[in-house]
């Protein structure tokens, strides 16, 4: 049985990665080639010529068409073969699958599953990444580990204290109680950790200029399978939002991850950090980008090790779950449910329908 949740939207790339060059990326084990038409529309096609499976990404663009680099089979942006070398008749089956695609919030999302089940309204949002009121830095790191390990990692931020001490981890992160909320119907997990009086990690001290101790809120909002949001609020100790919800005296950082399986044992780890202060300040941007990349790479190193352990362990290994794992357990349960639902044929009614 597969470990992927099909019939879901996944982040395949940043919009800036896709241009007039053919761009390959494997998503849920499916090799895909991306490009932009001359009009600027992003296109995603299966990255294999129907003829002899040559990668279309190793081919060339002729206007909006891909000409296969092996024998010259030519495809339009819908994946339909429009030219076969040396003959006038084009076989009826000569087409490569095209993927439903949505560009939103600086991401290129693709639908992996049955084409006719793709609903663009279900793409979850990360609006800060494309909002002029925020300045964003972002990147993507390849992870040689299964995506479930990254989900576990991100659902429990108490690991910050140990794995990321000196960057984003301080003693209070692991020691502050959390509230976990799970919306069964809409399949969202929310984990709140509100530290009233905490040490300010360098990540925030240097970027905000706050000196001394802080009120630090971390609110995780996970929309499985792909989109993970961390709403981070930093303020001097005792400074709270106003009753009307405005919060002018705090610093807000929206940390966004997109967790996209590449293969059964590797993952595209997209990360972005959007802030509502020091807008356009190149020095702060460079610092936050470098710091967050360092943190992501610390996770990558740890999870790459863990993947090897998991691959080599005996079946049925019993893990121990403790209080900090409450949200992670809910994430695993939703992913299991989504994997099962994604395997079912379209005609069968889904057990949990999103409203």
């Amino acid at each position, binding site marked *: 049985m597969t470990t992927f949740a099909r019939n879901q939207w996944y982040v395949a790339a940043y919009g800036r990665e896709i241009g007039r060059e053919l761009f390959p990326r494997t998503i849920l084990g499916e090799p895909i080639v991306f490009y932009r038409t001359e009009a600027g529309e992003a296109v995603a096609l299966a990255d294999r010529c129907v003829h002899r499976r040559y990668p279309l990404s190793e081919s060339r663009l002729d206007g909006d068409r891909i000409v296969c680099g092996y024998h010259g089979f030519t495809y339009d942006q819908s994946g339909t073969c429009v030219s076969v070398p040396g003959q006038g008749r084009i076989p009826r089956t000569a087409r490569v699958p095209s993927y439903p695609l949505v560009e939103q919030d600086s991401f290129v999302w693709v639908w992996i599953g049955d084409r006719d089940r793709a609903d663009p309204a279900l793409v979850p949002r990360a609006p800060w990444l494309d909002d002029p009121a925020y300045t964003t830095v972002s990147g993507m790191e390849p992870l040689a580990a299964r995506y479930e390990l990254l989900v576990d990692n991100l659902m429990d931020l108490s690991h910050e204290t140990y794995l990321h001490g000196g960057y984003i981890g301080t003693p209070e992160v692991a020691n502050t*109680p*959390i509230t976990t*909320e*799970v919306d*069964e*119907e809409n399949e969202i997990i929310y984990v709140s950790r509100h530290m009233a009086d905490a040490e300010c990690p360098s990540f925030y001290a240097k970027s905000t200029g706050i000196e001394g101790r802080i009120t630090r809120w971390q609110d995780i909002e996970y929309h499985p399978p792909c989109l993970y949001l961390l709403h981070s609020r930093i303020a001097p100790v005792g400074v709270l939002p106003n009753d009307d919800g405005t919060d002018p005296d705090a610093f807000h950082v929206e940390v966004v991850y997109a967790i996209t399986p590449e293969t059964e044992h590797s993952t595209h780890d997209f990360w972005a950090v959007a802030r509502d202060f020091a807008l356009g300040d190149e020095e702060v941007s460079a610092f936050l980008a470098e710091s967050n990349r360092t943190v992501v790479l610390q996770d990558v190193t740890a999870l790459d090790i863990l993947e090897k352990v998991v691959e080599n362990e005996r079946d049925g290994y019993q893990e121990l779950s403790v*209080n900090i794992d409450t949200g992670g357990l809910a994430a695993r349960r939703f992913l299991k449910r989504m994997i099962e639902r994604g395997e079912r044929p379209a005609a069968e009614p889904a057990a949990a329908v999103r409203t």
Partner: protein
Amino acid sequence: MLHGDTVHRIHWVLNTDRLLGVCHCGAEHESEDPVELWDWLLAHPDGHERPPAGGSPRPERQLAGV
């Protein structure tokens, strides 16, 4: 903060090792083991009737008047 109709909440009780689970129906249950607590939450409505003070919940006996 989530606001759906079927939201389960689990609070880590301050200064303790206990977790307090709150079902969307309002029933509550404490545990020191998140796996056991999730099993209880997901068993709704089994065992979710509010027990009378001091009594342990016996669902089949408490259907009326609760």
